[in-house]
């Protein structure tokens, strides 16, 4: 089982390859979309690379949840209690404490930081 630092380094190089960013910009707290300029189509590329680089299987929708725009999950751009609990269940590896206070769906993407990916991968490797 690799250490958190080893996982971070590999996630870092994964993002450098997938997003064409400089290594020094890929810090632990950097948000994939806001800070590293990722777009939705990059998510598929990131999933492919993480699977390849770590030898893990990432089921569809597990790392980046799909269908979060269902009406019973979002109301006026805010996650409903059901939506929030669904997100918590789908993203146990993410720190949602700040997000919970104002769960705007647009800010959902900001939850994806480099550290989120590191925690996700660590969880996968630990359970393998």
């Amino acid at each position, binding site marked *: 089982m690799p250490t958190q630092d080893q996982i971070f380094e590999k996630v870092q190089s994964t993002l450098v*390859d997938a997003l064409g960013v400089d290594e020094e910009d890929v810090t632990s707290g950097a948000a994939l979309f806001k800070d590293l300029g990722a777009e939705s189509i990059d998510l*598929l*590329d990131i999933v492919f690379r993480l699977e390849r680089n770590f030898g893990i299987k990432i089921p569809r929708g597990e790392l980046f949840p799909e269908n979060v725009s269902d009406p019973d999950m979002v109301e006026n751009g805010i996650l409903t209690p059901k939506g929030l609990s669904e997100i918590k269940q789908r993203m146990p590896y993410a720190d949602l404490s700040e997000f919970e206070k104002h769960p705007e769906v647009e800010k959902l993407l900001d939850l994806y930081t480099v550290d989120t990916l590191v925690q996700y991968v660590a969880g996968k490797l630990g359970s393998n």
Partner: protein
Amino acid sequence: MRWIWIDKFLEFQSGQFARAVKNLTLAEEHLHDHLPGYPVMPASLIIEGLAQTGGILVGEASGFTEKVVLAKIPRAEFLGVACAGDQLIYEVRLTDLRSEGAVVDAKAFLNGELLADLEIVFAHLDNTRSNQIFGPKNFVFTQQLLGVLDLAKAQERARLAEADSAAGNGLSRPLPTSEGGSS
């Protein structure tokens, strides 16, 4: 002009590998504009040819039931140019395939030398949403584009029949059946 940037498949291993050929000729309009007095094939059209080779490889892997679109080119390196009269060989290997899409390693060769080296990510369009926008027809794999693969299969069948005939087996050997539902 038809938007087909490969002339023929030379090899097709389902779900694994495809090799196609692209002959460049001065009859192609783009060579007169790119560049005036110096006709070289635009790198973007070489990418398109590699993407068509890879797109058919990816589409065939799931029986052409998915709408396969080029999503992203994470890496593209060009080491030279191709001119009128040249013959490009496109080689594409499927490296990853999952329900959301696929990745291929794509290379173009000129006279046996590597000319272009790319990685291409394809996405499978969400069928529910794409049906709402585009209708149920698979607009990616038109008969025009798939005709290139059909032609290669027909030529292969003819070659096998000819080989049988030359070996004195007459026409008794059955032709290989078409795979992938492209016809």
